[in-house]
């Protein structure tokens, strides 16, 4: 052993402030008040309802002899976004974890429906309901309409343990059980008559991770199992047809997501061949399965041929996945690094095919049967890169990627994309650092063949953009001015430009560019500031053909988003009174222009103006007692022509939910006391 023998007998560490055994921590107790109801403001934070709420946060640290410890962390105890994390054990030997989280998703409370049984899997219409051929004839609508909302809530419980078995081996196991309950919107149809419904969400997802990892001098490895089991407590949503129906189509049935499972084994290896050369290899082999019993072809007993035979009672769905990566990096000379990476991703759908008789919208038996298509995908990607230290402050990198993708049952069986890229990094010592990156990629496809089983057939001129010839240019520039006078300033520019030169119908071009700047400053020992600005434009062009031949209309999307944020922290009285603030403004605009070849009304912009301002102060009453106050104002004005003005009966053949774009202005006041112990 060549380890240096250092005489540490005099290293008493008597000034070291090691933590003593005992309990320390902090407790926040207080109240908050929310001025207005808003699902969008409270979308995730749980502050969706007007009124008071309890503020409760706690951190508890328990330290004991022999590296034993526990940390308990409680957040947002009074809100729907509460969490509890407990971890502890004996450092260096084992660690145990237990956590509980709630994640609300408040989607909207602006909707209404005439259906009864919302939240369940069987939606019925009231006995007074008047069926009609269009929404205008549904004369009982206003009588039976009742407001409702869309929201889901996830509740997660996780447990985990890590064992450090030896200096080189570590074992870990964890399990997470998540329930997700609530409602979501779903569309439904009988022929061309649609109705937006409220679908129940009642999911359980369990995830398991087991791993063993080895850390050696030159060789490291990790072996892992990942399992994910999904189950849905509902199999179908049944709803009554609100329209006058063809014979027998009095109700319909929509499938809920089927139960499914995924199991995956992974090995990751890393090896240093020498001080200069390292190789890593990852291999994951997985299997996705799904075998839930099929629903009946239709619930309409009056159709000729009912009941319809199914070729099998369940899918026996099976997808094998292989994901691999091999990477070798080498410092060939002190200035030159070379890297080679090979990536293999395979999604091999082995689901058995069968021919199914199908009924359109529980109304009409199709004359042609359909065979299910187990789509498979395979990627082979090779990446080469070189990195050269030109001078002490200049580094140049360049690379080449070859990316081949194979697909089954689709218009294109294989695509090849070649990318060349270069990067330069220049540093002016003590002043600035600039990084510029440019890339050009060209994707070539083989034959594009329309799928024979579609009826009516797809426009032969359409090119689906994920498998169309494409020229892509990417660029980015980042300049970071380095901390002079305690001010740090950065500028960035990014763009991506895609051209689908051989696509006459479908997406033809898209572009995304952004400019940003940020600054942070330590003004003095008492004050810090930050500011950031971002301007982004996302645009795309596409063409369509109303006759399913040559293009005769075009569409353009252009989103413009501007964001500015700034904030500060300031100490008014040292060790007594601190204040701070965070402010942000985001204006976004989504513009849709459709040129149908003749005069037509334009679309109004999809706008969102967002303002958030938060001011906070902390006043130390005693060494262990701090009074904290926060005022938070947030405002959103938004419009979206998809929803605005679309009441439940605005469209003759759509019984809508009447959702509106979110608009809110909310004030929140929080007062709490932090007690440290």
């Amino acid at each position, binding site marked *: 052993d060549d380890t240096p023998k250092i005489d540490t007998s005099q290293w008493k560490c*008597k000034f*070291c402030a090691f933590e003593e055994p005992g309990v320390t921590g902090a407790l926040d107790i207080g109240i908050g008040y929310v001025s207005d109801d808003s699902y969008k403001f409270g979308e995730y934070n749980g502050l969706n309802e007007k009124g008071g709420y309890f503020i409760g946060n706690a951190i508890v640290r328990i330290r004991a002899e022999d590296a034993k410890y526990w940390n308990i962390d409680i957040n947002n105890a009074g809100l729907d976004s509460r969490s509890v994390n407990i971890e502890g054990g004996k450092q260096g030997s084992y660690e145990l974890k237990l956590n509980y989280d709630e994640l609300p998703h408040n989607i909207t409370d602006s909707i209404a429906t005439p259906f009864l049984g919302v939240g369940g899997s069987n939606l019925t219409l009231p006995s007074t309901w008047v069926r009609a051929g269009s929404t205008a004839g549904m004369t009982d609508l206003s009588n039976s309409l009742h407001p409702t909302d869309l929201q889901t809530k996830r509740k997660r419980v996780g447990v985990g343990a890590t064992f450090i078995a030896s200096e080189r081996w570590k074992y870990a196991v964890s399990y997470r059980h998540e329930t997700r309950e609530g409602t979501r919107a779903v569309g439904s149809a009988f022929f061309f008559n649609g109705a937006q419904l409220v679908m129940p969400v009642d999911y359980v997802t369990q995830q398991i991770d087991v791993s063993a990892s080895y850390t050696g001098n030159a060789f490291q490895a990790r072996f892992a199992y990942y399992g994910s089991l999904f189950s849905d407590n509902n199999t179908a949503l049944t709803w009554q047809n609100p329209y006058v129906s063809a014979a027998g189509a009095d109700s319909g049935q929509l499938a809920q997501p089927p139960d499914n499972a995924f199991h995956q084994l992974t090995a990751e290896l890393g090896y240093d061949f020498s001080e200069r050369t390292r190789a890593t290899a990852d291999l994951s082999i997985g299997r996705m399965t799904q075998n839930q019993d099929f629903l009946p072809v239709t619930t309409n007993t009056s159709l000729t041929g009912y009941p319809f035979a199914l070729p099998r009672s369940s899918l026996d769905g099976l997808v094998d996945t292989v994901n691999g990566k091999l990477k070798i990096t080498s410092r060939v000379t002190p200035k030159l690094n070379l890297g080679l990476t090979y990536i293999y991703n395979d999604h091999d759908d082995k689901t058995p095919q069968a021919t199914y008789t199908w009924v359109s919208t529980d109304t009409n038996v199709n004359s042609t049967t359909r065979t299910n298509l187990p*789509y498979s995908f395979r990627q082979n990607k090779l990446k080469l890169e070189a990195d050269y230290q030109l001078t002490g402050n200049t580094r140049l990198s360049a690379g080449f990627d070859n990316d081949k993708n194979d697909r089954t049952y689709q218009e294109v069986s294989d695509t090849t994309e070649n990318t060349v890229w270069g990067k330069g990094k220049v540093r002016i010592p003590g002043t600035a650092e600039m990084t510029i990156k440019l890339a050009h990629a060209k994707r070539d496809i083989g034959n594009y063949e329309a799928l024979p089983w579609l009826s009516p057939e797809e426009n032969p001129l359409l090119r689906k953009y994920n498998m169309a010839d494409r020229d892509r240019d990417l660029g980015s520039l980042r300049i970071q001015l380095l901390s002079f006078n305690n001010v740090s300033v950065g500028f960035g520019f990014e763009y991506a430009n895609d051209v689908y030169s051989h696509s006459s119908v479908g997406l033809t071009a898209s572009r995304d560019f952004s400019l940003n700047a940020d600054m942070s400053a330590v003004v003095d020992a008492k004050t810090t500031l930050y500011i950031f600005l971002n301007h982004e434009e996302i645009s795309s062009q596409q063409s369509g053909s109303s006759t399913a031949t040559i293009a005769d209309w075009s569409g353009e999307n252009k*989103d413009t988003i501007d964001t500015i944020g700034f904030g500060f922290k300031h100490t008014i009285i040292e060790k007594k009174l601190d204040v701070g603030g965070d402010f942000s403004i985001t204006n976004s605009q989504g513009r849709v222009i459709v040129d149908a070849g003749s005069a037509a009304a334009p679309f109004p912009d999809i706008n969102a103006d967002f303002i958030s301002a938060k001011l906070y102060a902390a006043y130390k009453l005693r060494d262990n007692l701090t009074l904290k106050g926060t005022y938070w104002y947030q405002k959103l004005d938004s419009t979206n022509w998809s929803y605005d003005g679309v009441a439940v009966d*605005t469209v003759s053949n759509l019984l809508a939910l009447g959702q509106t774009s979110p608009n809110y202005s909310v004030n929140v006041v929080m007062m709490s006391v932090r007690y440290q112990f």
Partner: protein
Amino acid sequence: EEAMPKAPAASKAQPQVKPGTTPDARTMSAYTQKGADTCIKCHDEDSVFPVFSIFKTRHAQTADKRSPFAYLQCETCHGPGAEHAKKVPPGQNQAPIITFGPRSKLTKDKLNPVSVDKQNKICLSCHQGDDRINWHGSIHANADLACVSCHRIHVAHDPVLSKTTQAEVCYRCHTKVRADFYKTSVHPVRAGLLTCSDCHTPHGSSAEHLLIKPTVNQTCYTCHAEKRGPFLWEHAPVAEDCSLCHRPHGSVYPALLTKSLPLLCQQCHSVAGHPAVARTGDALPGGSSPPSAFLLAGSCTNCHSQVHGSNHPSGVRGMR
């Protein structure tokens, strides 16, 4: 080449640094006489580099034989400090010691050129395992990031390891992503319920974009397992890549979609009949044509709602 200190934990407890970096006799002789007590004399809480919070961290757990403080204390990571601790006449610099972070990387002081590579080797001498296996040659390594570019060692709670503060650390470089999370349709990162490392693994990954799972879809399924299938009737681009229709960092359109419907769907669907027709503002409420179900509310999804796949025998077109 300047010699590196040994890994902590006494020699036998823990894997050592790479061969060839054994301290030579010169540096070995230069460890302090009293270890941390020597350092703390100057580096107290009022110094330019206050260090005391390290005693609230795992690195200062002497009962864990892997911990730096169970070995050479401060000098486990900072290297031999005897020269550095020597008094110098006013106006002169202390002798250098191994330091970390941008001051070390970019200093004009020639006495102190600790390259990022050297800094990281010190950390990796203990932390090369687990998800750091893929660090070498990863995008963050190639961008010359030091471990301490993101991690803070001398604080009780490293902000990058906390769900509520991590994103702020990442935004320092990923400024555009910060702006993305101010859009109207986002994952709950601003609310502190989800953070960057729920989807990305910053130390290198077998996947593109440093994702936690080998593919985009496998990553998304960790929270959206109901979309995994396989379904009887698959929607091919859904099984291939969620990001063909969704922008994971935020969108101005609902459900993180890349654009509004029906144009989103019409990029790939142009069969004769209603999918091929241009939908204009004429079909908005109050327009010259009747308000259209092909355009408004859920647009295509008013009827074709099972866009992620359907397991219903009659769900061929996503309508059951």
